[in-house]
Every structure is written in structure tokens, then in C-alpha cells.
């Protein structure tokens, strides 16, 4: 799909011929994110119909206690230093951003009074500034008023490298100006196509200036508010034990009328995923369990108790196999798998094509992961309900044999194909994990039938993902022929995610293998397209550029996507949560209710 086709689609939505939801689904199918699709419509002036989130409650309180089970416990409650989703979700109970992303990728105002658009003067034509109007009458948990000063302070605090916050990248290079007591303007300094990143979603939670100011910069660690949040959210903290549990009560001065529904909230952490699933699906002790990474067979057994069901969050975690473009067995300039070298077999397109044909994505995802995997042909990937028309995947041993034969790889006396002194014998590594080893075995079996011999290697996760640059077995080094792991897109905008295949991100000796292009795939066209996307402010053109990057990458077949991995959540039968794959689990906690 190119720019012209995208524009035609936008026109159809404008005329009302194509439902908005369907448009977003199509773009998601092309590997873009729903927030991105919805921003295209906003930019093109197709107004977002203000569909309010469903809320079944009629008054504040009276709903009893909401009990959440996280098998990893939150360890602190500073939203800008929250490294895991467990901490981010916990912070979101207390803090709120200016806006959040709903399940369809619509930007929903939270602490803002409206979403900035070109029509209401919120967005500048040159894409350099965004003006947010803040909601009035919002109070912090300690009774102070929420104003523009808090937003300005959050920017200063998070953007200061001395505070060592994880959101520093988002706030470091922007400037935030106070227009009046309830209006702020973000100045990006350059045309910024995806403007809804500062103060929106997971990394956008606003901090109270009066609580955090005495502990800005290097003193950030000593702030008691890291454990005792003072936010604007629907619940306020009663008690927090790091690494164990937190308890909260309804905020009596919450700025949304008749919310929250529950009187109190308990979040218990720790243990293991299977028993967390039990506590919701089988015994009903808890209302919701987070990220149940348990085999689907077991989840189905637990669901049979009828106390709850499993919801699958179609996020953007992608499991893939990388075929090394460089030679891991020879040293060039004192470095194995140097970017200057070329893999003797995978350097040849026919071999990569055969490998792709030998990976039975459908059987692997169905037999091993069940509902926990959706086979995919795209790298930049989201739910594949509407599959990209550009790329397809196929499993065909016959065809793989033909391709190899035609390319001159002949079977030797041992049944393994060889050509000009190099043999199709590869080392295939991944982390130690039951499903991954089964997956390796299935691929090895199919390869064996095509005269390719795989030696399977599995590395303990702590080492494999450990990032220790002295260790030869890390995935960053990639000193084998093939490897398999999951990559996660943590932001609604794919720019940073797709940067992991640009040549300036090459993970190699000179940067202690700390950069993100671990596969070491390079392509001048891809680099140029990514550079163009960074500066392109027309969202339609930009979307087309990302689709092109995806096609370039997957089309070259050094990267073989296997499946996207939706995250399973256990939800009690009576709970009515409002969830979204594009934001935290607790992003709309005020809207949650329970049937009596």
C-alpha cells in the first residue's frame, strides 16, 4: 500500500464510506499501530467522534474491593522510573497523563480538557508545536490544585539527565512553555509527526510540583513520594509494601463524576504465573491477573472452572528468527560477526528463502502456544486480523528443496547440502524455555528434510539477555548462524522500534554491543527511508514509509517473523474492565465496574 492508496482510504473515511474502525484495523494489519492510524485521521481533519468510554456505574463507591493479582510485584511508584509493566500499571492507579490511548487507538483526554487538533488551534501547521488545554477543577490527593506548573515541572524533572529517569529521551529535547494557568505549549524544535508522546500514555504521567520539586535532579532517589504517590487518579494510596502489595481507597475528590465504582483496591504481587491464573480463574480470590504467560492448554483447563476467562491483549510482541548476515565463525579486524564480513550461506538469497519456507509458523503457533500466538509475516506487527497484502508466509519443504537445488546446493553423502566448500550446517540459538526448545526442534526437523543440519543451542535467559559484553553467548553478540527471541514495541509510534535495523544502530565491538541492531542487517534504502520518516510530518506519507521499511526488511528474508504474542490476562467472570492494548492495563481504572 502506498501513499496514494492511503489517501484514498482517508477520503473514504471522510465521506463516511469506510467506517473509522475499519480504517484503523486495515492500517494495523499493515503493521502500523492504532494510535498512529488515529493520528493520521486527526491530521487529515477527519474528526474523532467523541465516543465516551463505557461506564456502567451510577455513583461513586459502593462496588466493594477490586482485587488485582500481579505475579511480579511492583517495587516502587515513581512513574518516570518504572521499568517494568508491573510498576507502570501500579503508578497508573495514582497518576494520570493528559491523554491515554483506548483500544481502538483513539486519544482520550484525561487531564486535558480536549484533544489538540488543527481545528481547535491545538496543533500548529508546521508540526513544531502542540498546545494542550488542561482540565479545570482537578485536585491532587493532598487537596492542592492541578495547574500548568505541574506539567512544566514534570517536563523539567523527567528531562533532567541527573534525575536518571527512563523517560528522559521523550522530554530531553523538547521545550514546554506555560501559556496560562491551564494551558501549556510543547515546542519540539523540529517538525514532529508523532506529537502525542510527551504527557500521553505510560510515560506521560504528570507529577505534582509541590511534592517532587524538593527532590529534583540527583536527589530523586531520596523522595518519599517514590513510595507514597500523590496523584490525581481515581484511587489514593493507603499502604504500599515494595515487592509485595499495595492498597488504595477511592479518591473522594476524583475529577470524573460518579467515579470510581470500587471503594477500595488491593494489588497483590509475587509468586508464579500459573498460581496467579488459578487465583482468578479457579478460586475467584482475585478479579484480574496480569500477563499470564502460561501454556494455553493449562489456561483452558483453569477456565473450565467457569470463574473467569482469559483476555488476549493483541500487543506488539513479536517472536522472530534472525539469519545472520555476517560470518560468526571468522574474525575480521579482530571481531567475530563483524559487520564487514558476509555469511557464507545466508549471504545467498536462495538459502534464506529456503529457511523461510522451512519454518512452519502455523503449526508452531497452534501446537505450542495456542491462543498465545498469531502466526505472522510482518515484522512491524500488530493483530493480524487483516493481513498485509504485501507479504505472505508459506511452509513448503518440497519448494525449499527445489530452491536449494536450483541454486546449486547439492546433497553430499551425509545428506547435507553443500556448495563450494561450505555446508548448510548451522548453529541455532535461543534462550532456555520449554516452548522455545520445542519450537527449535520443529524447525530442525523440517530443515533436516531439506538437507540442512541445525545444531540447537539454548542459553540461560539471564546470560542470553544479560547484556554482559564479556560473555560470548549474549543475543547482542549473535555469534551463531541463527537466533530466535521476542522483540517488544513499547511505544505507540514505531519510529524507535524500526530504528533497530538501521546501520547507525549496529551492535558491534566499538560500542560494546550496546546498540540495538543486533541482527546486523544493513540496507541503504532502509536507512534512507527511516531518515525520511523521522522528518516527514505528513502522517499519511510517513505511514507509507513505515510500511516500506517493513517490506524491505522482511522481503530480504534475513529476518523471519514467526508470530506475534498477545498477552493473556485473566479476568473474573463478573468484572467489567476497560482495557486497551495501547496503554497500561490500569489506564482507565475509573471506568471499571463489577456486576453484582
Amino acid at each position: 500500500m502506498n501513499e496514494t492508496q492511503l489517501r484514498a482510504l482517508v477520503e473514504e473515511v471522510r465521506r463516511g464510506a469506510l467506517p473509522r474502525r475499519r480504517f484503523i484495523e486495515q492500517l494495523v494489519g499493515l503493521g502500523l499501530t492504532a494510535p498512529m492510524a488515529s493520528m493520521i485521521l486527526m491530521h487529515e481533519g477527519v474528526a474523532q467522534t467523541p465516543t465516551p468510554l463505557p461506564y456502567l456505574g451510577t455513583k461513586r463507591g459502593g462496588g466493594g474491593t477490586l482485587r488485582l493479582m500481579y505475579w511480579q510485584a511492583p517495587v516502587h511508584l515513581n512513574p518516570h522510573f518504572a521499568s517494568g509493566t508491573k510498576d507502570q500499571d501500579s503508578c497508573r492507579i495514582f497518576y494520570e497523563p493528559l491523554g491515554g490511548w483506548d483500544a481502538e487507538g483513539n486519544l482520550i483526554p484525561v487531564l486535558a480538557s480536549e484533544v489538540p487538533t488543527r481545528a481547535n488551534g491545538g496543533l500548529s501547521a508546521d508540526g513544531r508545536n502542540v498546545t494542550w488545554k488542561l482540565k479545570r477543577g482537578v485536585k491532587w490527593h493532598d487537596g492542592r490544585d492541578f495547574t500548568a506548573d505541574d506539567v512544566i515541572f514534570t517536563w523539567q524533572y523527567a528531562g533532567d539527565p541527573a534525575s536518571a529517569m527512563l523517560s528522559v529521551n521523550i522530554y530531553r529535547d523538547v521545550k514546554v512553555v506555560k501559556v496560562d494557568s491551564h494551558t501549556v505549549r510543547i515546542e519540539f524544535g523540529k517538525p514532529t509527526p508523532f506529537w502525542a508522546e510527551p504527557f500521553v500514555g505510560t510515560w506521560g504521567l504528570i507529577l505534582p510540583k509541590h511534592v517532587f520539586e524538593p527532590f529534583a535532579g540527583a536527589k530523586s532517589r531520596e523522595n518519599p513520594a517514590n513510595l507514597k504517590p500523590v496523584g490525581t487518579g481515581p484511587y489514593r494510596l493507603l499502604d504500599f509494601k515494595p515487592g509485595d502489595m499495595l492498597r488504595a481507597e477511592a479518591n473522594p475528590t476524583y475529577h470524573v463524576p460518579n467515579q470510581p465504582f470500587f471503594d477500595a483496591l488491593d494489588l497483590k504481587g509475587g509468586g508464579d504465573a500459573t498460581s496467579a491464573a488459578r487465583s482468578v480463574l479457579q478460586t475467584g480470590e482475585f478479579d484480574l491477573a496480569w500477563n499470564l504467560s502460561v501454556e494455553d492448554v493449562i489456561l483452558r483447563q483453569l477456565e473450565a472452572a467457569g470463574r473467569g476467562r482469559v483476555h488476549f491483549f493483541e500487543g506488539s510482541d513479536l517472536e522472530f528468527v534472525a539469519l545472520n548476515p555476517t560470518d560468526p565463525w571468522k574474525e575480521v579486524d579482530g571481531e567475530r560477526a563483524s559487520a564487514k564480513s558476509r555469511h557464507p550461506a545466508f549471504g545467498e538469497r536462495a538459502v534464506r528463502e529456503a529457511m523461510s519456507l522451512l519454518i512452519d509458523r502455523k503449526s508452531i503457533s497452534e501446537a505450542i502456544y495456542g491462543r498465545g500466538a498469531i502466526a505472522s509475516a510482518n515484522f512491524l506487527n500488530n493483530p493480524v486480523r487483516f493481513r498485509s497484502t504485501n507479504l505472505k508466509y508459506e511452509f513448503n519443504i518440497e519448494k525449499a528443496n527445489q530452491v536449494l537445488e536450483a541454486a546449486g546446493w547439492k546433497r553430499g553423502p551425509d545428506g547435507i547440502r553443500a556448495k563450494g566448500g561450505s555446508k548448510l550446517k548451522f548453529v541455532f540459538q535461543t534462550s532456555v524455555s520449554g516452548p522455545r526448545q520445542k519450537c527449535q526442534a520443529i524447525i530442525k526437523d523440517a530443515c533436516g528434510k531439506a538437507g540442512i543440519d541445525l545444531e540447537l543451542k539454548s542459553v540461560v535467559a539471564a546470560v542470553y539477555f544479560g547484556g554482559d559484553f564479556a560473555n560470548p553467548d549474549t543475543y547482542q553478540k549473535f555469534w551463531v548462524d541463527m537466533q530466535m527471541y521476542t522483540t517488544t514495541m513499547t511505544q505507540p509510534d514505531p519510529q524507535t522500534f524500526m530504528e533497530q535495523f538501521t546501520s547507525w544502530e549496529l551492535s558491534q565491538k566499538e560500542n560494546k554491543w550496546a546498540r540495538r541492531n543486533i541482527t546486523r542487517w544493513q540496507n541503504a534504502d532502509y536507512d534512507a527511508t527511516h531518515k525520511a520518516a523521522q522528518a516527514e510530518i505528513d502522517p499519511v506519507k510517513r505511514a507509507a514509509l513505515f510500511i516500506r521499511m517493513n517490506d524491505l526488511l522482511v522481503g530480504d528474508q534475513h529476518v523471519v517473523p514467526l508470530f506475534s504474542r498477545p498477552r493473556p490476562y485473566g479476568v473474573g467472570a463478573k468484572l467489567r474492565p476497560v482495557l486497551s492494548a495501547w496503554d497500561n492495563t490500569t489506564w482507565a481504572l475509573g471506568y471499571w465496574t463489577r456486576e453484582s
Partner: protein
Amino acid sequence: MGGYILRRCLIALPSLLGISAVLFTVLALAPGDPFEELATNPNVPPEVRMALRVQFGLDDPVWERYVRWLASMLKGDWGYSFVSRINVDELILQRLPTTIVVIGLSQLLAIAVAIPVGVLAAVKPYSWFDRIASTVAFVGFSLPTFFTGVLFILLFSITLGWLPFVYRSDISSTGWQFLWDHFKQSIMPITVLGLFQAASMMRYVRSAVLDVIRLDYVTTARSKGLSERVVVLRHVVRNAMIPVVTLVALQMPTVFGGAIVTEQIFRIPGIGSLLIDAILRNDTPVIMAVTFVFSGLVIFFNLVADVLYGWLDPRISYR
């Protein structure tokens, strides 16, 4: 006596020092990095991660880090967690009471079961009671706590639905209801841990009593016409207790080890589960502090055992 305890405490210092040095080196050599999560987070530029490593001194040589850790430890500064940036002593103090209560109660349960059963089994060796008790004990200490724990959960929480299997440190109810709720959620972890201990302890009690019961002074006591009850309780059990006390004290490390597993299964917020989390996240200051507390407790219980000897057997003197 006071001098003896003081001397023992002084002797304990070099062992603690040795333990800490070995631990620190092993942790430094082990793979992994507390900022692993950041490495896979594209939001965080590698420079921020490198800066944090420098700030936490992770790039310095091992001995330098050890000396620095030791120096601040001596000043009473336990450091702070890399992961949560909270002071380690705070984290441990929050969790230590729970662990002590759970381990203490399970030890009491173990003693309450093991001593009577062991003594009865020894008084009538190879009787039916002895055979059944010994078989059950054998099964008991062959089954690890992570197995019995899950078995208990399946039986009592899932099939019967009697007991909750998620331990909650803050129960909102008050008064009797509060005690009852705490009791209900503690039964399973305490029983699992207690019975595991009781099984091996019972075997020791039995053999210790068997050793004593054949001695001449017991025959003398019987021939004096003392009732069997008095003979066993006053003359046999007291003397048989010396090896048992040693065992109870020396088994404390095993109990703590078992507690780590049990705490994880039942989600008890004790220092055992703190240790597991810290290990999984490569949070060195927390791992060091928790293992340090564990080794301190082990040394302490050894001392307690030695002091108890003197009370049980006046012939042992402290010099």
C-alpha cells in the same frame, strides 16, 4: 558465661567477613546486570544505562566495590536497591517479622510433633506405632516443600476451597476476625514447613532416645520403682535432648532455605521471597544484605545451641 558469649561473637566476625567476601566475588562473577531490562527498552538510550552503571559503581574493579560496600556496611549504611532505589535496611525490616513468625511457628510445630512422636516410637521400638511413624517421617523428609506446598494448595484451596493460597500481609478486618484470617492463611505454609522439619527431627529424637534408654542409669531408675512416665520424661528425654538441640540449631539454614521456597509458593512477603526477587533482577545490594542477615541468623542460632548445652548438661562448662 558473658565472657564466653563475647568471645564467640568476636570469633563470628571473621566468619561473617569471609562469607561476605565470597558472596561478593561470586555475585560479581555471575552473569547478568541490574539494568538488563533497560538494555531491551528502546526508550532508554545506552548512554543513560552506562551513566547509571557508573553512578552505581558497577564498572569499578570487584575488590574496590567490595571495600566500598564493606566500609559503608560498617558505618551502618546497607546501601540501596538498584531496582527500587529504596534503602535495603528498610526493605529487610519490612519483611523480617513475617519470616521470623512463619519460621518460628513452623519450628514450634515441628518440635511439638517430633518430640512426642519420636519419644513414643523409641520407648516401644519396632512396634506398630514406630513403624507407621517412621514410614510417614521417611515420606515426609523425602518430599520437598515446593511439592507438598503445591499439593496442599490443590487439595485445600482448589478442591475443597477451605483455605486461601495467597498470603496477604495486610488484612483489613479487625479483632477476632483479623486473627482468624491470619490463622487461616498461615496454616498451609506453616504446616508445610513444620512437617518437613518434623519428619527429620523425629528420626533424630527417636535415635537419641534409643541411645539413652539402654543406659544403666535408666535401668537403675526403673529398679527404684519410678513410674515409666517419670523415667522417660525426667531421666531419658532430658539427656537425649542434647543432640536434638544441636540438630534444631544446625538445621536453621535448611529451614531458611525451605522458607525461601515456601514463601515464593504462598506469596508470603518474607525475606526469602525478597532474596529470590533480588537474585532474578541481579540486585546486588539486596542479595548481599539478605544473605548477610541469613548468615548472621545461622551464626546466632549456633551460639544459642551452645548456650543451651550448658543448661541441659551442667557438666559442660564455658571457658
